[in-house]
């Protein structure tokens, strides 16, 4: 799920960036530092959408770096148990398949793939129904349901299922 929230961060800036462009430099560094990172609490920071407030800088003893408390608005993506996501399959093996929904990696184990889909090994390992009408392989797009998340301080990993109504392949790259 996506959220638009306000976060705060202490930015350390080298004195060489001081001057007329201090603010621009600060924001550029913030984007570089923050966008694409993941915190267990808030999820993945997708994009910074605005700066709320930059506080007074404080010179650090000994280094000359100045730290600015910066309040910024951003869009975060945080997967939840029970959430339905659309994802692209990245790898298929005998144990199941891996897929990505933006920055999130999801594993779907083979017992959560419908029983009528069989694993086929080969150059392009895949799961296929007995009549061959539905096939899951690399780059397939699937709709899946998150059934579990592992949230570390800097990482979120999900497991999902496609064994339910309206889940499964939504676009088959082989047929396009």
């Amino acid at each position: 799920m996506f959220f638009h929230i306000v976060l705060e961060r202490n930015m350390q800036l080298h004195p060489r960036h001081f001057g007329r462009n201090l603010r621009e430099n600060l924001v550029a560094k913030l984007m570089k530092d923050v966008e694409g990172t993941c915190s267990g609490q808030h999820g993945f920071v997708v994009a910074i959408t605005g700066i709320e407030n930059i506080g007074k800088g404080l010179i650090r003893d000994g280094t000359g770096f100045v730290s600015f408390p910066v309040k910024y608005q951003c869009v975060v993506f945080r997967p939840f148990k029970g959430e339905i996501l659309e994802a692209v399959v990245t790898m298929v093996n005998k144990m199941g398949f891996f897929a990505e929904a933006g920055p999130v990696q999801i594993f779907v184990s083979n017992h959560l793939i419908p029983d009528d889909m069989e694993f086929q090994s080969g150059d392009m390992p895949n799961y296929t129904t007995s009549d061959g009408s539905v096939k899951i392989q690399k780059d397939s797009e699937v709709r899946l349901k998150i059934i579990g998340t592992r949230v570390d301080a800097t990482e979120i990993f999900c497991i999902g299922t496609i064994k339910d109504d309206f889940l499964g392949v939504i676009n088959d790259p082989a047929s396009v």
Partner: protein
Amino acid sequence: MSIEPFNRLVKLAARAFYDDITTKGDNQPKTGRSDNRGIAVVVLDALSRRQWVREEDLAKDLKLHSKQLRRTLRFFEEEKLVTRDHRKETAKGAKIFSAAVAATADGQQPTKEGEEKIKLHTHSYCCLDYAQIYDVVRYRLHRMKKKLKDELEDKNTVQEYVCPNCGKRYNALDALQLISLEDEYFHCESCNGELVAESDKLASQEVGDGDSNARRLRREKLKDMLQNMEVQLKPLMEQINRVKDLPAPEFGTLQAWEARANAQRRAENGESSATDPSKSSHGLGYGGTPMPFLGDTKVEVDFSGVEGKGNDIKSEADTTSLKVLPPWMIKQGMNLTKEQRGEVKQEAKMDDTLAAPEYSDDKKANTEDNEKTLQDEYFKAYYAALIQRQQEEAEKSRQVGMKSKRDENEGDDNVNWEEAPVAGDANGNFKVNDLNVEADATAEDEDDIDWEEG
């Protein structure tokens, strides 16, 4: 618009899902007196006999405190079984509603004269929403089944993997660290052994360690639950199917319903004046308070004649003995252990004898009305009829005894829920069968008390 199948649905659903609902807060002590489980069923049943009803009147009819009733109704509103409407109204507004009630031929007399003096008052009304009840019950059944099935099929469980070499356990959330580039299996982080999925292991070796044992037990329990659900809710599911293609009874909003009912009444009476509801409602008098389970007007008429008396009792007795037991009654008698069977036979008899006071109450009431004029003339005929009835009852109870035996064979284990109250109530009436004619006086005394209370 047939309302009967839908009312049956309401009654079945009430007993299946709302039987042990208590509307008391959790912090209040649950003494025997404050334990109001079963109220929900009573309220739903009462609503199935009415259309729109003012909540105060319903409370009065059910002899409930209006606060308690409101709490129950609020619960049902949240459950989406009941629509409610609140409005500020003057005495005149109340009259319009009374007229509408009178027009629906329930013969209810909701307002006392005293209430009409209140200037402006917020009144709440409620009504069953049949279309929504159908959907709610269907959805509830669907969710129950789906939840059990999902659990049974391990749909939402995290797959576990175990290393056959070192016994280290992993689960699907570790998958990212376990993939290897060489083959398509997961490999142990410490010994690089090929991991085996836990359920495969269970199937291939039936390893009896504690964890998998517990899992197997749980599966069996789930399977039992699913099966029990199918059996116990079968009457409800059948009723759902029966109702499926029928148009749901629709009373509309309170205003629409009122307008319709009043228009109908005016059409019937050929009246031109818009509001003269006081006449119709006053005509019923205070004694007209409805007692749905006693409202057997047929009996009232029959007992005023001498010659018809014996026959009428007989026909009534016939119908009660042939009466098809409602499914929730049949249910309780089924699938009993052998020790309990004796009890059930009693119970079946008691159902029967419980039906008896119904018309003996009526009889009592009516004889009281006519007592002074009729007593002398009909005294003998009355007792002759009583004796006849006793004999018929004895016969009848034998029949019912047979019937209950047959019911027991059908199998069900939901037994306990209504036994206690029935047993407590029926002890006295039970004598009627045992002691036959001599028990007349005591039986009637008890009926008397019942009559005053209820």
